[in-house]
């Protein structure tokens, strides 16, 4: 019961033949080697596997890989091409200590990316509601909320790409 999958992930096209029952989360991790997408509960509760499907955050464990045919996916790897050049959203989590073990972080980042595009100055309540579908067992969420506020502030300052983030960090380093 194999089926073709032709999908764009982080701007690159992939074609594979997979079993129809292969979940998108396992496809990303095992077929494409994109292990940044984490797999926690595998029944749609924890949010660790959240990816963008045509720009919209969805649970990749509740979607079959075959359903992604003709669509575009963005995973946490798509935020930045270089581990030394963090996306401003990642940098905000780094600076505000928005993670401890980091298992939930990829899903949280992918949930927040479109959220911050739509909400330039979110309130704490809006942030907490946006993150209600992402479980974190380490932080108690307070630092995550701080990180989201910081990320929103970066966006308002026009810092939206890893390159812009690197420029700011470079300037800060020279002071």
């Amino acid at each position, binding site marked *: *019961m194999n089926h073709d999958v032709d999908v764009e992930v982080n701007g690159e096209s992939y074609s594979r033949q997979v079993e*129809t029952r292969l979940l998108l989360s396992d496809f990303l991790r095992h077929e494409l080697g994109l292990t940044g997408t984490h797999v926690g509960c595998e029944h749609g509760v924890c949010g660790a596997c959240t990816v963008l499907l045509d720009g919209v955050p969805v649970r990749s464990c*509740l979607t*079959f890989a075959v359903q992604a045919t003709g669509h575009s996916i963005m995973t946490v790897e798509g935020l930045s091409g270089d581990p030394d050049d963090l996306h401003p959203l990642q940098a905000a989590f780094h600076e505000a200590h928005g993670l401890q073990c980091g298992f939930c972080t990829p899903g949280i980042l992918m949930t927040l990316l479109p959220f911050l595009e739509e909400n330039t100055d979110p309130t704490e309540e809006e942030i907490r509601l946006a993150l209600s*579908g992402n479980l974190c067992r380490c932080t108690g969420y307070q630092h995550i909320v701080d990180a989201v506020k910081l990320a929103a502030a970066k966006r308002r300052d026009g810092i939206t790409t890893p390159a812009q983030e690197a420029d700011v960090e470079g300037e800060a380093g020279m002071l």
Partner: protein
Amino acid sequence: MSVITFHVSRFTFQTYPMKPTPFEYYAPRIRQEALELLAEYAGEAKVLAGGQSLVPSMNFRLAQPSILVDLNGVDDLFGITPAEGGGLLVGAMTRHRMVERSSIVAERAPLIAEAMPYIAHPQIRNRGTFGGSLAHADPAAELPALAVALDAQMRVQNASGDRWIPAADFFLGLFTTALEPDEMLVEVEIPPLPRRTGTAFEEFARRHGDYALVGAAAVVTLGDDGTVAECKLVFLSVGDMPVVAASASEVLRGQRPTEDAIRAAAKALAADIEPQADIHATAEYRMHLSKVLARRTLARAVQRASGA
């Protein structure tokens, strides 16, 4: 999860555990094609809408359908349109997110707009569908109770024709609807609210987005003399399908909707519902919550009806 790697000569095969059992997958682009697949494989095929309930149960192997008919590519099942006379039509594949953000829904079915943010989490609402939730008929879900409260009409179709089923006749029990194996829900009509009608929804869950311990939807119409002309109170999570609190509504009908009258209606609930205990709440606690939610939703519906 462990990945098992086999090395056979110079080829490497990787395999890994699969959660669901194998199935044949069809992704029709047009509705008739989907209906013909359902006719051909009636009883074997399962419709895949948003998959936010079906896929978890497949991951747990509670559901093991041998054939899936994926409706995500059937464009004419998506969308919200105003209906003549002030109601609206919602295509079965319309995502919760679209309903939540729809100005037509906010204006013509404020009860649905009020309840949408309670449905699971943002990521689930991005994918889950209006019709999928109704056809799944989870007694803890919001939309079945709202459909009953608003006297929605369900349009179901098979390869040879269609029929309309009132929401009150659509839900038959736990995860059970009036849909025949070769039929699918294609569209839902929400009729317009009568004038001087107010609605309200509220539910209680331990954490936002969890299944509610109890939820209540109230629809109240006031007469010109200020008494309650019509009242409907529907609960979720207190039975195996949406439960209409007929006695409580009867207590309020014909009365001035004072605080005392609303309190009396909430008291009458004992005759309408018999909540069960489970690991989340005792029966007594669910009953208590039901009365509180009845009072709150009725009071808000009355207030909104006065302003309408």
